[in-house]
């Protein structure tokens, strides 16, 4: 089974993000970048399927030089090959990213394409569905359980208030959700083995962004809490405020 996993490098969730001076982006200099946690699920799932079906896992990622550390993370987990689609920066538009990925994916003749349901930085959640459209193959999104046989997949996906079980023929796309698996740690052996793998570099035509970021702002600060008094005497006033000001009881 020939498996591709599309990954993205994103800022560490513990990083305190600072908006850049022009308010169009964030200050990248101080950021610790990591492999997108949802993509980690995709890498893990790819490795498990490859182990069960004697397959091979290729990771693909698009972006500037700095993303090689995310690619190395995936290789250290056990992926066999890697393709770095080199760009000066990450496109803002998921349509542009998906088009560039599709060009490379078409060349690879993959049976299964896995990716996280979303990247935790820009949260578009669009790459999977757009790739499905561009490559003309089915996609199962937000998948929490996956069974793969030689020519089809059965996937359980989260829907509002329940689960949906779907089946589709290979080749197919699956976007991964928490609960699907528990990603393995990159072992020291894996880290050293990854060192020997040559990352293939590709340059493709990336379409221009069709969206533009006008402004990035911090969320508004929470107003401080209010202490209305102490003991039983304060209760009537508290109830009045909860009714009239907060409007949480009636």
């Amino acid at each position, binding site marked *: 089974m020939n498996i591709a996993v599309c990954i993205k490098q994103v800022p560490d969730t513990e990083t305190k993000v600072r908006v850049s001076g022009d308010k169009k982006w964030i200050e990248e200099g101080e950021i610790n970048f*990591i492999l997108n946690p949802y993509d980690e699920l995709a890498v893990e799932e790819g490795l498990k399927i490859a182990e069960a079906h004697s397959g091979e896992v290729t990771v693909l990622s698009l972006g500037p030089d700095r993303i*090689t*550390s995310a690619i*190395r*993370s995936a290789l*250290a987990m056990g992926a066999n090959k890697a393709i770095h689609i080199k760009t000066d920066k990450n496109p803002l538009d998921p349509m542009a990213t998906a088009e560039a990925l599709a060009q490379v994916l078409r060349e690879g003749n993959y049976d299964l394409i896995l990716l996280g349901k979303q990247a935790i930085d820009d949260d578009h959640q669009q790459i999977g569905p757009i790739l499905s459209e561009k490559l003309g193959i089915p996609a199962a999104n937000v998948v929490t359980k996956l069974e793969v046989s030689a020519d089809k997949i059965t996937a359980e996906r989260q829907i509002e208030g329940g689960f949906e079980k779907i089946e589709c023929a290979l080749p197919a796309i699956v976007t991964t959700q928490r609960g699907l698996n528990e990603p393995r*740690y*990159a*072992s*020291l*052996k894996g*880290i*050293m083995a*990854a*060192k020997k793998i040559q990352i293939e570099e590709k340059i493709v035509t990336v379409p221009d962004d069709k969206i533009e970021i006008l402004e990035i702002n911090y969320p508004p600060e929470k107003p401080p809490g209010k202490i209305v008094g102490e003991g039983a005497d304060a209760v009537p006033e508290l109830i009045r405020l909860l009714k009239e000001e907060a409007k949480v009881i009636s």
Partner: protein
Amino acid sequence: MDFELTTEQKLLKNTVRDFAEKEIAPVIEELDREEMFSTDLTAKMGELGLMGITISPDYGGMGMDYLSYCIAVEELSRIDASQAATVAAHNSLGISPIENCGNTIQKQKYLPDLCTGKKLWGFGLTEPNAGSDAGGTQTTAKQDKGQWVINGSKIFITNASTEITWGSTIQAISGTNSDGRKEYSCILVENDTPGFEAKQMKNKMVWRSSNTSELYFDDVRVPEENLLGNRGEGFHQMLNTLDCGRLSIAAMGLGGAQGAFEKALKYAQERSQFGKPIVKFQVNAFKFADMATEIEAARALLYRACWLKDSGKPFSKESAMAKLYCSETMGRIVNQAVQIFGGYGLMEEYGIARFYRDQKLLDIGEGTSEIQRLVISRMIGC
């Protein structure tokens, strides 16, 4: 000068940090309270590759450099000193002497299972009457009918009496040199040898979920070929082992300091007194500024000492300096960290008391701070 870690070192740091936070942090309070060594965590650390970090892949090791090893120990210590101790003692004291001094047969026999963490190996140097004065060793090894016959005892030996311990390297007096001085040799002794007993030491203040043992030898007979390296090399083998071991103790001081600092900072940001977070009081803010500065200095000293070793340059002085400074830095930081926690810092539930207790070993083990000062002073012309 390049202070950038390699891609592999960064990946290693991330993976060990992740592992320590997810696998060790949730169970450590109980292990520490119950004074339990965890074969389960040891197996997981072995699976990750932490039990033979610098050993050649030919013998099942990871073939990484010493800085990588120290980064791994640092990241474990940031969460828990006991698991860091299991790893550090096994790597520096257990298997390094076998790789550095052992012959091919010994390496092929012992290293593969030791590198996966399936088995552990100890290093028996300290005796009841031979602490800082390693020349006070009383354990003897005499040759008889193609065997070594060992008598004596060892104390404070890490990893030597767990369920998965295979054996220990024992330093013993093997004769007298022509100049009348004692001759020392190191001999490999497996735990199931008749006459040998390894007994766990209990009621420790520090490293409560790491295994510490007393070893007793009563006419213990092992084959002659269990000699490590050549006869008479025992003292130098021990000194070389300790030079390297000091780097990993330094890494424990650095990681422990980092962990205590982070805990205290988080607490100070959340704890309010007089209407504001206590971190906002300059008296505390300056404490944190000092702590952060000392940690950076400690890290620079240790990483450079590792770099010297990895570059094949002399590093004995720097490893003693790193061991001394990182250990004492952690001492100052855990003291301030408990102070920041106030009364809660005295309660085990808050986790900072464990760092406070665990630090004290670092001033004592693998050469006391006094011995480090002696080593350094002799090397700078005193």
